[in-house]
C-alpha cells in the first residue's frame, strides 16, 4: 500500500506553479524550519483576480503536494474567494492525506491567507483583522 494517493505523488513529483516571482503583488510565508516545513506563496493580482501564483516549499512530500494543489485551486480566482480556500478542499482535491499529514494542508491554507494579507497590506486595502487572526498564528509546537 502506498503512503500517498496517486494525486499526491503526482503533485509532489510534478509540482504545478513551482518557483519564485520577482514582481509579486503579495508574498506569504508560513511554517517553521524547526518543525520541518515552510511554505512560501507568491500571488500576482489584476483587477481583483489572482492571475498568477508561484510557490516554494521546504518540507515532506505532502507539504510540496498540498502547496502545489493550493496554487491550482486559487489561480484565476477572485482574491476574496482565495481566502475561502479551506485545508479540507485541498485534502479532497488530492484524494486524501494520511492523518498525520493533515497539518500540511492547513499550512497550505495559511500560506494562501498570508499572501493575500500581504497583498491587502501593500495596497492599503481595508480588511477585518479577524479574517486572518485565526489562520495566521505561530505554530504552538514550534514556539521556543
Amino acid at each position, binding site marked *: 500500500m502506498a503512503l500517498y494517493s496517486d494525486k499526491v505523488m503526482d503533485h*509532489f513529483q510534478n509540482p504545478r506553479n513551482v518557483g519564485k516571482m520577482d514582481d509579486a503583488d503579495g508574498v506569504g510565508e508560513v511554517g517553521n524550519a524547526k*518543525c*520541518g516545513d515552510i*511554505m512560501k506563496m507568491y500571488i500576482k493580482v489584476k483587477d481583483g483576480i489572482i492571475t498568477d501564483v508561484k510557490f516554494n*516549499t521546504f*518540507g*515532506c512530500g505532502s*507539504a*510540496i503536494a498540498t502547496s502545489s494543489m493550493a496554487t491550482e485551486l486559487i489561480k484565476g480566482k477572485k482574491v476574496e474567494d482565495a481566502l475561502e480556500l479551506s485545508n479540507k478542499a485541498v485534502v479532497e482535491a488530492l484524494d486524501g492525506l494520511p492523518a*498525520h499529514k493533515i497539518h500540511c494542508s492547513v499550512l497550505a491554507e495559511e500560506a494562501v491567507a498570508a499572501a493575500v494579507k500581504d497583498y491587502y497590506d501593500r495596497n492599503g486595502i481595508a480588511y477585518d483583522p479577524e479574517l486572518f487572526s485565526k489562520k495566521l498564528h505561530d505554530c504552538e509546537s514550534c514556539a521556543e
Partner: protein
Amino acid sequence: MFVYADNAATTCVSKTALDAMMPYLTEQYGNPSSLYAFAQNSKEALENARKTVADIIGAQPKEIYFTSGGSEADNQAIVSMAKVGALKGKKHLISTRFEHHAVLHTLKKLEKEGFEVTLLDVHEDGVVRLEDLEAAVREDTALVTIMFANNEIGTVQPIKEIGEFCRARKIPFHTDAVQAAGHMPINVQEMNIDLLSMSGHKFHAPKGVGVLYAKTGMPLFNIIEGGAQERGKRAGTENIPGIVALAAALKESVDNMEANTAKIIPMRDKLFAELSKIPHSKINGSLEHHVPGTVNMCFEGIEGESLLLLLDAKGVCASSGSACTSGSLDPSHVLLSLGLPHEVAHGSLRLSIGEYNTMEEIDHIIKVVPEVVSYLRDISPVWEELENGTKKHLI
C-alpha cells in the same frame, strides 16, 4: 536500476539461511517439547543452533535464549536487571541518549515505576566517553545498558572498556548489539558483556527471531509467561525454522566477515567521498569508530521525507531521521543527541549497504542523490534564505 540501501532496517534472507530452515517448515515440523523421535529432530536442531550461536560469541549454550527479536531481548534484559537491582535496593539505571527505542522506552517505563535513569551524552561524534560513565555510576546503579553500534549513524561504542569498567564494579552490563552482530567481531568474554541482544533479520535471517545472551548468574524474569521453553525464561513453542536460519545466517556472516567488510568498506567510503562533495552537507558520527555499512549525512535546506520519496522514484531505498518519517514533530533523537539543530536534522539521509550491494549500485546512488538534493533545494525557501544570506548556513 533498483538499489536496496537500507540494510540497517532489514536484510534479505540468505540462500544459506533459507536452505537451512526449509526442512523445518515442511518436513521436520515436530514440536521440540514433544516426546516422540520425530519431534526430537526439532529439539536437536534447536540445541545445535543454540550451540552455534554460543560458540560464535564466546558464550555457553545455556546462556543463549531465543526470542522474537531484538526488542524482546532488550526488554527482557533491562527489566530483569532492574527487578534484580530493586530487590537489593538498587534503582538507578544508566544508558545513553541515542539508544534504540526498545531500550529507551523500556527505561521510560521503569522510570514511571520509580527507577532513576541517567542517559549519557554521546557527544558530537556519537561515541560514549568512559569518564562520563564513571561520573554517572552510583552505589545504587543496577544496570548499564549501552548499544554496541548505533542503528542510525553506525558509530561503535567502546564496549570492551565499558564492560571492564562495569565488571570491576560488579554492575551488570547489557549491550544492544542488533546492528553489530554478524557485522563485527563480538566475544562476550573478552568484552566483559553480561547481557547482549541481537536480531536475526539484520544479518540475513528472517524477521521475528532474535537472541538474548545472559551470562550465567544473571537472573532473568519472564516477559512471556507460559510453558517451560528456553529454560523456563521465555514461554512459547520455539520458532524452530527461524532459529535454525538465525544460527545459519550468523555463522555465514561471521565466516565471511572479513571478505564482506573488505567489499563493503570501499563502497561506503566512495559514498562518503562523493556525497560530501554536495555543498553544505555533513557526515554524522565518527568515522573512526564505525560499523562497515552505515552512511548517515545531512543536507542543509531540504527535508528528509521528500528526499526519500524522490530517491524511491529513482529506485533507491534509503531512510531518514526527519520528523516526517518518524511520525512525530521532532526529528530523530539520535541526530539531536549529536547536537544537530532541528532544521539540519530534518535533512538527513541514511544509506546502509551490505555485501549484496555492488559498485554499480553505489555509482547510481552517487548520481541520483545530488540531483534530488539540488532539485529540492531549488524549490526550498529555506535554501533561498541560506543562499541569499538572510540566514546563516549551519553546516
